C-alpha cells in the first residue's frame, strides 16, 4: 500500500494542488503560512475520515474552505451570477497492488485525474437537498460571507465509487503530534485512540468486556450496596421509583474515555514530551502488521535537539517500509531524512522537489545534518559567503546601503565555505532561488569563471557570483585595505600601522575580530565593489 499522489481542491489555501508523495519519506518544507500543517491536515482527513479526531461529517468547519473560493462565490452570487458553491475535494492515490484484494476494492477511475488506481476521495459539498436554502442564504446580504456548513455534507468514497468507513480502509494512518495539543480536549482521548489503534480487534473487544465487568462489579461491592440500600430507604419526594447509584453502563461510557496509558507507572500525560513522542511512534509502528502511513507535524517543536535526534533515528530505523510524511521547519530533520524527499511549498505555486539534484550534492547534504539548507530554501534571497568575517562585512555593507539588517528584508547571509558553494547552487538552480555568491578570486579569475559557468546566465535563474577581477587582490582583507585609507582602518581597528603591508598582516591574523569591529563601528568606510554588487 503506497500513496503516490495527493490532490486537493478548495481546502484552506489550496485551490488546485498536487503533491507527489515519496515512496518513503516526504518532507514538507515551507515558510510560515504556506500551508504545511493544512497539507498534513488534508492528508489525514482523506486517509482517516477524521478531522481533529472527530468524524468529519460532524466537524465541517467554515474555515476548511478556501477563502478565495468562498469570497468569490458570495460576490458572484450577490451580483446575480450563477456559480457553483464552494466545495472541497481531497484525493489520495495509491499504487496498484493486484495481490491485495482489500486494496483492489478501492480501485476505479472515479477521481479527478481519471487514473485507474486504488484511492480515497473526501468530498465536502453542499447537500443537494439544501441547494435552495444555500442560495437563499447567500442571496441575503445581511448574512455573513461564511460557508453555511449546516447545508453541507461530507462523503468519503473509494475510487471504485463505493463508500468507505474507517473499518473498510485496509490500512491505518497515524498522526504523530509532538505538541499534543489534542490532549487538552478530553481526558486522554488522544492517548486512548493511539493505544486503541495498537490493539487488535480481539484485544479491543476483550478490553471492552473486562471494563464492562469491572463496572458491574462496582455495584456489587458491599460498600456500594450499603449506600444503595440507604438511598432506597430514604426514598425521594421527586419520584416513586427506587434510586440507586451505578457505574454508567451505557455506550457513552467506554474504556477509552477512562483508561489511560502509563509509562513506568507515570500517567502518559505527565511524561516528557520527547518520551511521549517516541511512545506514540512506537505504538503507531507496533500497532499492526497492516501498512501504515505516518504523518508527523513539526517534530522539532517541543523537543530538545537531542530528543529530536533520537526521534528521527527511530523513524529511520523502525518505520520499515511505511510511508512517512513530515512537515518541518528544521534543516536538521530535512537533512537527516534525506534531502531528496523534500517537497517545498511556496505561496500559491506547485510544490517543488529536489529529486533531480546531482547525487553527490544530495550525499553532501545527507552527511551534514544541521547544515543550513533550509535557510537557503526559505530565504527570499540568500547571500553565500566564504566565512564568518565575510558574513560580518556583508551584514554591515547591507546596512550601509539599505539602512537595515539583511534578515529584516528576508535576505539571509549564509557562511558556507568556498568548497560548498556549488552544492548550494545546485539547489538554487533547481528551485529557482535568488542567490548571490560573494567569493574571493584566489588569484585565478579564469578558474573562478569555470567553476561557476553552469550556474550563471541560465535562463530564469537568479544566481549572481560576485568577485573582484584584480588577481593581485585575492581575498577580503586586501580588498578592504585597497578600498580604504590607512587612517580609516587604523581608527576603526584601534591600530597604528604605518604601512598597508603591516596592517594587512594584522588583519589576516585577526580576521574575525577585525570584521566584527568593521561591523560595529560608527565610522564610515568604503565597501569593496564586488561586495557592493552583491547587495544592490
Amino acid at each position, binding site marked *: 500500500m503506497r500513496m503516490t499522489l495527493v490532490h486537493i481542491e478548495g481546502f484552506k489555501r489550496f485551490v488546485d494542488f498536487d503533491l507527489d508523495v515519496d515512496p518513503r519519506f516526504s518532507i514538507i518544507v515551507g515558510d510560515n503560512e504556506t500551508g504545511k500543517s493544512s497539507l498534513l491536515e488534508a492528508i489525514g482527513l482523506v486517509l482517516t475520515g477524521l478531522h481533529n479526531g472527530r468524524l468529519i461529517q460532524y466537524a465541517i468547519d467554515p474555515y476548511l474552505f478556501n477563502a478565495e473560493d468562498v469570497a468569490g462565490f458570495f460576490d458572484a452570487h450577490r451580483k446575480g451570477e450563477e456559480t457553483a458553491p464552494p466545495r472541497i475535494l481531497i484525493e489520495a492515490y495509491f499504487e496498484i497492488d*493486484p*495481490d491485495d*484484494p482489500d486494496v*483492489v*476494492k478501492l*480501485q*476505479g*477511475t*472515479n477521481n479527478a485525474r*481519471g487514473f*485507474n488506481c486504488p484511492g480515497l476521495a473526501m468530498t465536502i459539498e453542499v447537500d443537494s437537498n439544501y441547494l435552495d436554502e444555500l442560495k437563499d442564504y447567500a442571496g441575503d446580504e445581511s448574512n455573513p460571507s461564511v460557508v453555511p456548513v449546516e447545508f453541507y455534507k461530507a462523503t468519503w468514497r473509494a*475510487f*471504485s*465509487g*463505493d463508500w468507505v468507513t474507517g473499518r473498510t480502509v485496509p490500512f491505518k494512518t497515524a498522526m504523530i503530534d509532538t505538541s499534543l495539543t489534542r490532549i487538552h480536549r478530553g481526558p486522554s482521548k488522544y492517548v486512548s485512540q493511539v493505544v486503541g489503534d495498537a490493539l487488535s480487534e480481539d484485544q479491543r473487544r476483550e478490553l471492552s468486556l473486562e471494563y464492562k465487568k469491572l463496572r458491574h462489579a462496582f455495584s456489587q461491592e458491599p460498600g456500594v450496596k450499603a449506600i444503595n440500600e440507604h438511598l432506597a430507604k430514604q426514598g425521594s419526594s421527586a419520584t416513586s421509583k427506587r434510586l440507586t447509584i451505578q457505574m454508567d453502563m451505557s455506550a457513552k461510557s467506554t474504556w477509552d474515555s477512562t483508561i489511560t496509558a502509563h509509562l513506568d507507572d507515570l500517567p502518559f500525560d505527565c511524561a516528557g514530551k520527547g518520551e511521549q513522542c517516541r511512545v506514540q511512534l512506537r505504538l503507531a509502528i507496533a500497532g499492526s502488521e497492516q501498512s501504515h502511513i505516518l504523518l508527523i507535524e513539526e517534530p522539532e517543536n517541543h523537543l530538545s535537539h537531542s530528543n529530536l535526534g533520537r526521534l528521527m533515528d527511530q523513524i529511520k530505523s523502525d518505520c520499515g517500509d511505511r510511508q512517512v510524511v513530515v512537515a518541518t521547519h528544521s534543516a536538521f530533520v530535512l537533512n537527516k531524512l534525506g534531502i531528496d524527499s523534500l517537497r517545498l511549498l511556496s505561496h500559491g505555486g506547485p510544490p517543488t522537489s529536489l529529486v533531480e539534484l546531482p547525487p553527490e550534492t544530495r550525499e553532501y547534504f545527507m552527511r551534514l545534518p544541521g547544515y543550513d539548507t533550509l535557510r537557503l530554501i526559505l530565504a527570499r534571497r540568500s547571500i553565500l559567503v566564504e566565512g564568518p568575517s565575510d558574513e560580518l562585512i556583508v551584514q554591515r555593507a547591507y546596512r550601509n546601503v539599505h539602512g537595515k539588517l539583511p534578515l529584516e528584508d528576508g535576505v539571509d547571509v549564509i557562511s558556507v565555505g568556498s568548497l560548498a558553494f556549488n552544492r548550494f547552487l545546485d539547489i538554487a538552480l533547481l528551485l529557482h532561488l535568488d542567490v548571490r555568491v560573494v567569493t574571493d578570486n584566489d588569484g585565478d579569475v579564469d578558474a573562478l569563471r569555470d567553476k561557476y559557468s553552469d550556474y550563471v546566465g541560465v535562463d530564469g535563474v537568479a544566481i549572481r557570483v560576485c568577485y573582484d577581477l584584480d588577481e593581485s587582490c585575492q581575498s577580503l582583507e586586501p580588498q578592504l585595505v585597497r578600498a580604504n585609507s590607512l587612517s580609516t582602518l587604523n581608527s576603526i581597528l584601534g591600530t597604528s600601522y604605518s604601512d598597508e603591508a603591516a596592517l594587512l598582516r594584522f588583519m589576516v591574523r585577526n580576521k574575525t575580530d577585525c570584521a566584527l569591529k568593521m561591523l560595529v563601528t560608527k565610522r564610515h568606510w568604503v565597501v569593496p565593489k564586488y561586495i557592493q554588487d552583491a547587495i544592490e
Partner: protein
Amino acid sequence: MALVTYTNSNAREIASKFHHLNSGVPSHVDVTTWFGFLLRECSRPYQRSKYAEKRIGSMAFVNSRSMKGVPESDTSRYYFASPGQIFSDKIAQFVTECEAASSGAVLARLEGIYTDIFIDEFQDLAGWDLEVMRLFLESSIRVTLVGDPRQFIYATNPSAKNRQYRGTRIVDLVEKWEKAALCAVESMKETHRCGKAVCAFTNGLWPGMDTMEPAQDQDESHEHVGVLVVAKSHVMDYVARFEPQVLRHDKRTKTAGCSARNFGQAKGLEFDRVLIFPTGPITEYLRSGDLKCVEKAKNRLHVAVTRARRSVAFVFDGESAFVPDRWEPASGSDFHS
C-alpha cells in the same frame, strides 16, 4: 469471495445461515444482491469510461423495457432515468459496455478482489445479465452458479436480449456454455430439505425433467410429515395445532385471516410446515391431477411446496386425485396415512 443472490430477503437468509454456522459473515465474504453487485462492483468503478456526468447512485426499477425508441448512443437517456439513476433493465448492458470501453478494467478489478463468485437463484437471470455472466465465466474467477430452473419466477429484467433462454429454457444456454468449455454442469437431484412426499408431489409437476430425491441424511422420524389436504372448516384448528407458514399465490387469495406470504416472497426461505391456500387452477389440479390446469402456475407452486422441511398442507375440500391424506381435528391422531 462473493455470494450473490437475487432478492434482499435471500441475501438476508444467506447471511443468517452464516450467523448460524459461523457466528457471522467472515470479512472475506461479501453477501450481496445481484443488483447491488452490478451497481457497486461492476458499474461504478469504471462508469466514467461510459458516463462521467454523475456518480451512479441508485437504480430506477422498471417492470417493462425502459425508454423504447431511444438509441443506445444516447447514453444518458438510454441508460439513465435521471442523472446518476440507472434503469434496472439496462444496468447489465451498461456493465458489458464499461468492460469494453475500459479495455477489461471491470473484470480485471474483480479478478483482483474475488477468487470465487457464487450466484444463487441463477435461473432468474435474464437478458444482459447472462452476458455479464458470460464475462464472469470467461474470467479467472471461479464461478459457481446455483439454480433450479423450476423456480423461475421473476426475471431480473425484461430485456429482449437472450429471450430464447427465459425460464426453464436457461438449461439450453447452460448446455451451450458447457459445449464452449465455459463451465461444467452438475445436476443435483438430492434435496436436503424436502422429504419423499414433497419430492413426489413436485416431480409430478415436471414430467420429463430430472427428478428431485430426498437426500439420505433426511430425518423423517418427525410426526406429521408429508403432503396432505385440510378442509376449509378445519383451517383454524390446523393453524393452532401446527403453526404452519401460510402461503398464497398473491394478496387476492383470502387466507381466512391468517397472516400469509406470497409464493414469490417465500422463495429462498424455508419453514418446517407450510399451509397453502391454492388458487382456482391449483384446486382444480389437486382435484383432477390434470397438469394443464397449472401450466402457468407451476413454477410458483413448485416454490411453495418446496419451502417445507416437514409438511405441506393444502386448503382443499373434497377428494384429490393424488393427495390421499387428510387432516381432521376430531380424529385424535394427527395424521392419517
